[in-house]
């Protein structure tokens, strides 16, 4: 096992063990707002340069380089906005909430650095509605930071730098984690994703203006990057996946937990089996499958355990690191139920805007429910795959889509993964008379 000790190189979870890390006093005592002070001593473009040099990948799910995304703002269009995506809701994902609850000032400092670097005139901090504790921790941190002169008019006394951070709550809708849906929601609308192009809100976003939408974890890295330099950040982790990343390992492991590890060098085997992390399977159990990057990701198996937690490697292997959510299932798992659980999630969370997702995901869920209820028909397994194909033509990875956003194709992942690997588990649910019949009928492509 080559994984570094959990205490090594912690960047953004370094205050998780500090009781008062969420207070301004605790934050300042542990070096807080040093990054901001350093940033304000630099030209804004140079701050952007440090972030670019850090090769910081977005931590929300898509893994797009933050410094590049920042560069998509069209010149001379003002104002520009910053929207913080704190709507963490991908099943299995649990890290942004901790960052907001335990180190809110770190996030605020990251926001201020981004606003300074890019000339963003106002910041909206969109926190998932169900996270009452995170909301109050951030509200308290904001009130302290305003009073102390870190946020608001004349940040740290600067005559030319003023920016408000407005705390905003959601109200329960997974799809709002999609950045254009987040903007719709922030505008007071139904959280339905916008059509692409434009592909990035950086060109046309909130109120039609250039808008940077960054994930909580992404922004929480900025104070360290600016304080220590982008090069120092890039020196950690793998070449194309730099710094550290926070992973939540849940499910059938001995010690579920949230771990900050060097990005790109740690392997799935390390983080699942190393006793310093999740500690392996529960006693007497063996690995059946695991989801490497949140419910949307195709499932991995034993043979992928030695892949590094590195974006390109995981992409190449046919899945994604997504939101840093590793869900482990052991040999006791009923994969049909697990598959249904994930598909039900997407069916319930479909916004309803486009036909294939609205109708397709709920149809998939209904078929799976029927199979679980012992009412399956022989043709249902092929039907499942064909419905998947009509949502995501080719059922390949990365997914193509007939939908507006990736939510619909996300429901395809668990079905394609589970049916391919565990078809017999599904067939076992079909009534005995059904299994003996060939599956040729009815499922014309």
């Amino acid at each position, binding site marked *: 096992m080559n994984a570094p000790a959990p205490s090594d190189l912690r960047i953004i979870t370094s205050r998780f063990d500090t009781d008062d890390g969420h207070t301004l006093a605790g934050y300042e005592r542990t070096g807080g707002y040093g990054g901001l002070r350093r940033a304000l001593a630099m030209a804004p473009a140079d701050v952007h340069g440090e972030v670019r040099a850090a090769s910081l990948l977005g931590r929300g799910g898509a893994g797009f380089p933050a410094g590049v995304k920042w560069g998509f703002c069209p010149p001379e269009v003002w104002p520009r906005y910053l929207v913080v995506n704190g709507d963490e809701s991908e099943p299995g994902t649990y890290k942004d909430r901790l960052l907001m609850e335990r180190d809110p000032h770190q996030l605020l400092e990251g926001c201020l650095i981004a606003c300074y670097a890019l000339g963003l005139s106002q910041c909206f901090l969109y926190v998932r509605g169900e996270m009452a504790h995170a909301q109050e921790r951030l509200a308290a941190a904001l009130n302290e930071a305003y009073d102390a002169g870190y946020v608001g008019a004349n940040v740290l006394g600067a005559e030319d730098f003023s920016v408000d951070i407005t705390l905003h709550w959601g109200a329960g*809708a997974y799809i709002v984690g999609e950045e254009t849906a987040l903007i719709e929601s922030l505008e007071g609308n*139904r959280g339905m994703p916008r*059509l692409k192009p434009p592909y990035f809100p950086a060109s046309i976003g909130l109120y039609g203006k250039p808008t940077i939408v960054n994930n909580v974890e992404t922004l929480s890295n900025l104070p360290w990057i600016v304080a220590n330099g982008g090069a120092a950040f890039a020196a950690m982790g793998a070449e194309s996946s730099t710094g550290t990343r926070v992973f939540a390992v849940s499910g059938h492991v001995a010690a579920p937990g949230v771990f900050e590890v060097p990005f790109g060098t740690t392997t799935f085997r390390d983080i699942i089996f190393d006793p310093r992390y999740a500690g392996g399977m529960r006693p007497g159990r063996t690995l059946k499958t695991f989801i490497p990057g949140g419910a949307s990701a195709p499932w991995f198996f034993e043979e992928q355990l030695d892949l590094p937690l590195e974006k390109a490697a995981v992409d190449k292997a046919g899945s994604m690191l997504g939101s840093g959510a590793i869900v482990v299932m052991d040999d006791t798992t009923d994969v049909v139920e697990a598959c249904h659980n994930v598909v039900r999630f997407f*069916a*319930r*969370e*479909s*916004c*309803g*805007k*486009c*036909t*294939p997702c*609205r*109708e*397709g*995901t*709920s*149809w998939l869920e*209904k*078929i799976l429910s*029927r199979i679980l209820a012992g009412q399956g*028909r022989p043709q249902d397994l092929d*039907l499942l795959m064909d*419905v998947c*194909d*009509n*949502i995501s*033509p080719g059922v390949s990875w990365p997914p*193509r889509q*007939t*939908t*507006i956003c990736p939510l619909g194709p996300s429901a395809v992942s668990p079905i394609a993964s589970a049916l391919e690997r565990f078809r017999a588990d599904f067939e076992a649910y079909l009534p005995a008379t059904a299994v003996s019949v060939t599956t040729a009928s*009815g*499922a014309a*492509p």
Partner: protein
Amino acid sequence: MSEPETVVNITVNGRPVQAAPGEWVIAAAERAGVYIPHFCYHPRMKSVGMCRMCIVDIDTGRGPALQPSCMVAVSEGMVVDTASEQTRKAQDGVLEFLLLNHPLDCPVCDKGGECPLQDQTMAYGPGESRFVEEKRHYEKPIPVNSLVYLDRERCILCDRCTRFADEVAGDPLITFQDRGDQTQVNTFPDLPFSSYFSGNTVQICPVGALTAVPYRFKARPWDLAEVESTYPNPMGDRVVVQASRDQVLRYQGVDSDAVNWGWLTDKDRFAFEAAASDLRLAAPLVRGTPLGQPDHSGRELVEATWGQALGRAADAIQSAVADKGPQSVAVLGGARLTNEDQYAWARLAKGVIGTDHVDAQLDDGLPADAVLGLPRATVNRACSPGGTVILLAPDPKEEQGTLYLRLRHAVANDGVQLIELTPRATGLSRLASFRLHHRPGEAAAVAAALVGGDTEAAADGDIGGVPAAAVAAAAAAIADRADQPVTVVLGRPSLAESADFTVAAADELARFANLLSAGGRPGIAFLPVLHRGNVMGALDMGLAPGLLPGRISLADGGPVLAEAWGSVPTASGAGARGILQAAAEGRVEVLILLGADPLGDFPDQKLAAEALDGAGTIVASDLFLNPSALRAHVVFPAAGFAERQGTHTNLEGRITSQRQVVTPPGTARADWAIAAGLAGRLGADFGFGAAEDVWDEISRVAPSHRGLVLEAIDAADDGVVATDSSISFAPPRPATPVPPVDAYSLRLVAARRMYDRGTLVQHAPSLAGLASPAVLALNPYDFDRVGVEPGADVRVISSAGEMDTPVVADPGVPRGTAAFGYNHPDRDARDLVDPEAVVTDLRVQTR
């Protein structure tokens, strides 16, 4: 649309296609004859890419990929394949998804037979359903308002109706509710989709989810005979008229680029009910025994033959002319007739009888020279991107629904800046750049400051009740955009003030012509909005005092028309008010009413009543036995819209055709035939055998219409705009002074609303209930001053009368002004407006 400056070359299904820059793939393909199936896409609304039916393979150099063709703009070299295996599979998949929860009740669905979903399913759909689960269930049709039902089980959530409500009509009162596969369209509880335009949602619904109450279960599409025509409203909305068993059952809007873009108001869409009313006149009527003498004793109107009725009318005219001269005959109305009808009546009145006492307007419009003597705009000019519109008119939302939709689109989407020069807020106020809400009667002062830029002079920083700074800012904004067209929408903003004030304001704005037209700039033009469907045709055809057909004065056109007609009146006649005054004084022997109801429709009710009492013989040609026709001695049943051929002239001067689809009730005839028949009795043979013959004569003798042959009008997509005019704008100078308002009074603004006690509304059962008594509206800050409470019942007193009414707060009414509805049932502004005064002031008291 103007020709694209450049062309984008794309390939659609292997064929080269030239597209316009920025054009959606779906539109470019359709122009090239390749239909891409779709449900949510609508060319007059923003694309949303929701239904996904139009996804096709589009290759922009990186290989073919499925993309929604309603959201992808053409680009040079793009290759589109609408028939690839991948496309077909994806579209079949979407269709199957849409059908999962769609009920199979096509046999009882109004949309059956004209349903895009049904069509697609027949063409491409799966033979049998793979969906064995329970479909979604909702309560079957629920009313979203009194005219439109919504069946949510049939709805495919394409967002057309909700987008229309929000984007086009500006009435977002139906929205998506709930989420995912539970998403539904609905209103807020107990808050109906109260929009003047709701029927459009029925027309654009791609399934049978929205149905129109007046049409429900009336017919199947394949039983409908249909023809394209022009709805007789001032916009001249293009429509398809659909009929079955000789009865009109539906109007559908036609997407005319120049005019209505496919939209209709509910008032017009559902007015077809009135045409089928049992109360329609179906036979001529005469008072007393048909063979006897005119009977003033109040005996009943009884049915007569056409010969008897025409004879009675001709006799009356002949004796009037013989005894008192041609000027003892007067003609009122005609603004709702076709151009041909109007011409025939004009020729009868002016060329045969010899009277110029002819007026199609009922003292509620503008002088003909303000319409025909100012540079005329088109709707497209007013709406051209980046231009300026000055609204010196009544609220277009209330009075000119489809013009409102066009203007709204232009202001909301095309960067047109709107400057309201109105006495109160309008339906467009929320979008207006400048709201110059002046004191009633004082538009001219504001206009003068706008043009002259002299806003400093105002001592108290106030011009006509508008802050001088706002006027100055608006003037600067006009100047900033002087390279783009400036268009004045011109009409009577209030019927409680003299038309002189509007004319004076137009006179001031006309001075812009010099300032704005320099250096080849487009300058200023006027788009007149007046009441009654073909009022513009009436002016063009000479149904106004001092005018002859072809936009020419009696003086200038006399020799021209005399050649064709034999003679023309020797002296200018009186307008509507003068005619009624003469009648009241016993100087009108024969009063001819052409679809006119002075008792119901003339602003001065007292005068109208006295006039009908004092007139000799009253001859009415009408669809209904309205209160004035009830007083007539001879009543001709006239053919209405869709019952006769003809042409129509809209507010731009655009001439388009109307078509006959059904036969008129009973023996009703087109007005041109009635006029010609009467002329025959008076010894003049017009030689008209059909409406086309009348137009043929118009195109030969009316100077502005010379050479405008019917074939050319019908061949053009949007008809032909007649542009010539030899009328000069001659405003009265000096302008009429505005009397000061005393500190205890409020100055009245009286304007029409969409639904009123007009004949068509009241005879259409679905619409009649939408008209309501007027209520007094004051600025919220005026209540304390006046000493009443919002919502209270108050007594209102003017120099003309008094009445009791509820009073409501309306921030759209400026301080010091009171607004009250005109032509409403039961409580109506006409009982307060002082016809003798140029403005009307009110006092409000608690009861």
